[in-house]
């Protein structure tokens, strides 16, 4: 009888002993993992701080301004470019009768195609300077009579006839005559490539 009791206690003691060691090692492993994770998080946080500082340095206004001058040549918004209410936004021009073709001569196009200047109308109306690459043959015509007759379909422009000569001054004539790339850029890289090619 005594021997069975001893055996029972022995088994129990060794079982608890093993269990205790097991748990202890488990806890140690978990503690290790916790410490590792904490260190990794702190290191990660520090990396983020460094990257934040680097980002702030690379995007400071000075750099952006210099890069804009080099690659984009955007200028500050002028007052007349701002449309603050929906009513200010001009209506979409009527669809062109024929797809706008590239002019060989600006005057010839202006006289020959009196009904196809939809590209020019919103721009001339707002006085928004457009990219030299967009085909805007009409305002650039040196003689105003054909241009005005061509634009008769657009009543909005007749209200502000002063817009057309202004734009004509702003746009270099050779930019209009030059075969421009009418297709839209598919991606930002494409756009940058276009801009780089145009200068």
């Amino acid at each position: 009888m005594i021997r069975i009791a001893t055996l029972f206690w022995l088994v129990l003691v060794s079982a608890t002993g093993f269990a205790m060691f097991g748990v202890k090692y488990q806890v140690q492993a978990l503690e290790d993992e916790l410490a590792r994770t904490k260190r990794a998080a702190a290191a990660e946080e520090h990396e983020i701080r460094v990257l934040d500082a680097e980002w702030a340095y690379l995007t400071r206004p000075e750099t952006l301004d210099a890069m804009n001058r080099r690659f984009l040549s955007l200028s500050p918004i002028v007052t007349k470019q701002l449309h603050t209410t929906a009513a200010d936004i001009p209506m979409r021009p009527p669809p062109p009768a024929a797809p706008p073709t590239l002019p060989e001569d600006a005057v010839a196009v202006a006289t020959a195609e009196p009904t196809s200047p939809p590209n020019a109308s919103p721009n001339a109306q707002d006085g928004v300077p457009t990219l030299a690459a967009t085909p805007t043959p009409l305002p650039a015509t040196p003689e105003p009579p054909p241009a005005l007759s061509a634009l008769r379909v657009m009543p909005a422009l007749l209200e502000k006839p002063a817009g057309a000569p202004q734009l004509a001054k702003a746009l270099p004539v050779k930019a209009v005559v030059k075969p421009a790339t009418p297709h839209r850029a598919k991606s930002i890289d494409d756009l940058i490539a276009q801009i780089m090619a145009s200068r």
Partner: protein
Amino acid sequence: MAAVQPFDDNPCRPRHFKPPPCAPVVPAGPARQALEACRSRLFFTRVLFACVFAVVALRIVEVVVLEGGSAQSHMPRFRMPVPPVPARTDIVDRNGKLLATTLDSPSVYANPKQILDPADATRKLVKAFPSLKSEDVYAKLTSGKSFVYIKRRLTPREQYEVNQLGIPGLQFQHEERRVYPDGTLTAHVVGYTGIDNSGFAGIERGLDDTLKDRRDPLQLSLDLRIQYVLREELQRVIDDFTAKGAAGLIMDVNSGEVLAMVSLPDFDPNYPGAPDPDHPTLSFADRMFNRNTLGVYELGSIFKIFTVAMALDYGTSTLASTYDASHPINIGRFTIGDYHGKHRVLNVPEILMYSSNIGAAKMAMAAGGQKQREFLSRIGLLKAPKIEVAEIGSPHFPGKWRDVNVMTIAFGHGISVTPLSFASAAAALVNGGVLRQATLVRQPPGQAPQGQQVISPKTSEQMRKLMRLVVEHGTGTMAAAPGYVVGGKTGTADKVSGRHYEDRKLLSSFVGVFPINDPKYLVLAMVDEPHPNKQSHGYATAGWTVAPATSRIVQRIAPLLGVDPVDESSPEIQRALAVDSLQGKKIEAY
């Protein structure tokens, strides 16, 4: 039992040979049984140990051979040096753009006793840091000390490179460094810190404790984009008119938040002591000087807005009051004359429009020195301004307020205030009469801080109309920004030199508010000692120097601030800004 086997049983045994003593042969019986039991127990123990060792051996095989790489997780804990959380919090602008941050900038040191190959280590280190001299490094590495600095304050990239070298015996010491990514742009506002990262100037010094205690970044009211515009335009004025310096600030008139504050020349807070390559002659103190908060100036004619506001608020003048400005006033050793002289009787709007010193002096005399002093004190011009930067200048004003002082203070001479105090007071004149303390810390949107009503809303409205007149028809026409309804006042002061005024040295300033029919932002620009150029037809006055700059600033910042342009000729705006006393007459008709 005790029978011993005779050892000379072998007849052939050599004589000298004695057989070894032998274990007694235990005869069968209880003793023998006990012996047997012992043997079996020993055997059992042996088997047990063999089993345990077999388990250990198997485990070793499992760990080393079968598990392979995963055994690494049971290696002793390896302590990678990880920088602790920085002791000083970041500073960001109102859009969250980083203005100042603390980066870990460890110093690398060597323990020469642990360096195995000093020559090789020297070669690698000099390759990584070309600024180090190889003989110095070699001397350090062979010095036999146990601690020598190789290089202080590494950048993260340099730290990475040192790690890549893999030289045993090199260690990093944790150090922190304050970094200002925007450099000179916010130098005077943010300030800089010393080697132990305690604030030495600007916000860093003014809010030193806050920056040390806080965990989340400190958000300033500053807008970096607007700050850039302001600095660029002021720099342009300096370049165009070969001026000595310039200062400017942009304030939200309804909350007192400062959106931009620039003082030129400036410095790079990352290297505060380094000389400026563009201005090698300027001392550090000159570049450190914050003209907006520390500098006190006799601002000249822009002070007339306070004279007019005082007279209107106390009721000692109305818009229709007239004052004879046909002859200069002689008082004591002074002669008060007009720069843009009209030599006739002027009414109050004209005094402001044409910036008549004589008229302003007479208006102030009509109110009296007592009221003038009381009014200036009420709008906070007779005490030092309160703002978060450490550099604060106290105003200079006469202790005894005599008649001559009343007259000169009426047009901004004989009293020196900081541009910041001026801006706060001017904001109170146009925002409905509430004076709020200027602040550089962002206020929660929609909650204007508590202010103090210093003039009546009616006077404030009259002041807005008068300031619009100055830009429409008066001395400030070049400050007009189409669509943004700018109102303001020009001021060209002769600088004080010793005990008298110098005619050639000017301080030109302009205070502009837009849109003046519903004031939102105030722009104060000031240029120190501008010289006339060809474009300005020989003028260096405010109307030709800072007024055009203000116009450019307003046109550039208004879209950023979300101020919509309006049609200035629209009937509502014309009606809102019509001056009653003129009763529809044209200005030129007066």
